[in-house]
């Protein structure tokens, strides 16, 4: 019972962008995929869902609880997406259809896979809105996406992804597009919900500080290759790879040492 990616390779014509990437995640486990932009993190996630962009070809093996997903027809994969594996995307501004009310979008996967009636879908939508901590849920469900803040929209996306109770959740930098305070709130909500749902999580990020809060195990990707795979604690204490050391240094610079700045500011007062 797990989601296993084995020797995944993604080619765009003659160019190989992901080489032999392997990892495994079980329900309840939390895996972080970390790397710089262009390292193939997002493509790996899209490959799991069979949603690679046109022209990309994946080979290797992706097994969902023992079933091979690679090479399955789109129609069959559509039955798996949102139901057994769901995904949260990076950009909350564009991840919702601007012409549909929140109510119609927040419980969409539940409706698609659960065959809920209209009334049940409505009830589920309200339940989800409360679950992800949207203020005035009944009111907000009647709004359109552009009437919500970025953080609220991302809460809607997270609610939608969890709505059908997927066993695995892929999250592609779900907090990167948000400002720091909102990011922290959303991360907490996300953390709690995933823990409660018992889903296996693949969390994609370029920020080791974020990864440290969410994941137990880290897979470091550089140029489409796994350069390190270790428990997050190990990565934080003694990174083995060059990229791991760089990411740690970057995280230290931005987030791990706010103390001197605070002290300086308070003495100035």
């Amino acid at each position, binding site marked *: 019972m797990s989601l296993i990616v084995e020797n995944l390779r993604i080619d765009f014509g003659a160019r190989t962008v992901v080489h032999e990437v392997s990892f495994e995640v079980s329900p309840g486990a939390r895996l972080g995929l970390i790397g710089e932009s262009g390292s193939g993190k997002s493509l790996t996630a899209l490959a799991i869902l069979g949603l690679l962009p046109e022209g990309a070809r994946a080979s290797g093996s992706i097994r969902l609880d023992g079933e091979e997903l690679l090479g399955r027809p789109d129609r069959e994969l559509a039955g798996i997406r*949102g139901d057994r594996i769901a995904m949260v995307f990076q950009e909350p501004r564009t991840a919702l259809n601007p*012409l549909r009310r929140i109510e119609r979008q927040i419980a*969409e*996967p539940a409706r698609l896979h659960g065959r809920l009636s209209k009334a049940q879908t409505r009830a589920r939508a309200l339940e989800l809105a409360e679950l992800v901590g949207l203020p005035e849920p009944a009111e907000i469900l009647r709004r359109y996406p552009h009437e919500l*803040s970025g953080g609220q929209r991302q809460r809607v996306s997270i609610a939608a992804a969890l709505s059908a109770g997927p066993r695995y959740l892929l999250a592609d930098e779900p907090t990167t597009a948000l400002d720091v305070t909102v990011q922290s709130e959303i991360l907490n909500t996300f953390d709690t919900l995933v823990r409660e749902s018992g889903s296996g999580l693949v969390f994609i990020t370029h920020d080791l500080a974020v990864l440290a809060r969410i994941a137990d195990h880290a897979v470091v990707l550089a140029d489409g290759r796994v350069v390190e795979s270790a428990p997050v604690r190990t990565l934080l204490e003694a990174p083995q790879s060059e990229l791991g050391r760089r990411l740690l240094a970057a995280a230290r610079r931005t*987030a791990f040492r706010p103390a001197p700045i605070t002290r300086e500011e*308070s003495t100035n007062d």
Partner: protein
Amino acid sequence: MNPLRKLFRHPAGLFGAIVVAVLVLSALVSLVWTPHDPVFTDSARRWLAPTWAYPFGTDNSGRDIFSLIVAGSRVTVLVAVGSALGAGILGLLLASLGALTRRWVREGVAVLIDVLIAFPTLLIAMLLAAAWGGSLLVVIVAVSIGFGVNIARVTRPEIRAVLAADYVLAARASGIGSLGILRRHVIPNILPVLIVQLSWGMAIAILAEAGLSYLGYGAPADTPSWGRLLSELQTYIGIQPLSVLWPGAVITITVLGFNLLGDGLRDVTDPTLADPILSETVPASNAPVSPAAAAGATSDSSARETEPAHITPVSPDATEAASISETPETQEGTR
């Protein structure tokens, strides 16, 4: 605001809507009643000047011109609706082929559209009329082809843009099938563009019918039609020059009406007004900036780990709540 109410506040759009409403109404009324029998000839009342009984006067065979125009609106409406349907179906079919298929089919269809668009509608109609003789069906088919290609040209990139949107990827990740994508995402998002195109297409159809009937390829001899009437009255321009003005003016006003309606619909459904990113920048600049958010915005300090002592912590939820309550008002303001 409701798009229909916005249209009524748009002067050109309102004018267009009225013209179209009058046209449809007169076509419906003419089915049961016209002031005089439009095809009844009476040599005793040839070339009567306009009076209350004959508002536009009579023609060389004593037919009431006003009744002919009212009855002729049936052909106009039929051609407009028929062509819009035909052009819409053909256009969407071509656009879907050019947007949803494999790459080489898609590119091929795009080239085909570019080639077909070079053929003037009138030429297509004359080719068809040469083969099958003139009829209203020929007019409708010709306009459907001629304008359908136009619609395909305009909607194909719209469909591509919707398919490339993040929300479609997100919807696919939710497990929605191709048909669901079309029904819930593509069609609603291209509908405004399509409606505007169709109203312009109707104007072209009306003009084409008038032109083709004028040339003798359109409506059959016993069917009242504006184009046919114009061509008949024009023969007598030396005898009764004023009479030609009536069908000419009616055609002009109707075509203008459809064009203005199209413009009005385009303005009230302007995508920039519904653009989530554009509309969001407005409340963002007006929203009160909380100290916590301001601290978070500077890149070298992190408000997340430790709050600076002198700053009152503001919960992010309060910031979020403030920006929602801001949104609807600013929205109203921008419209």
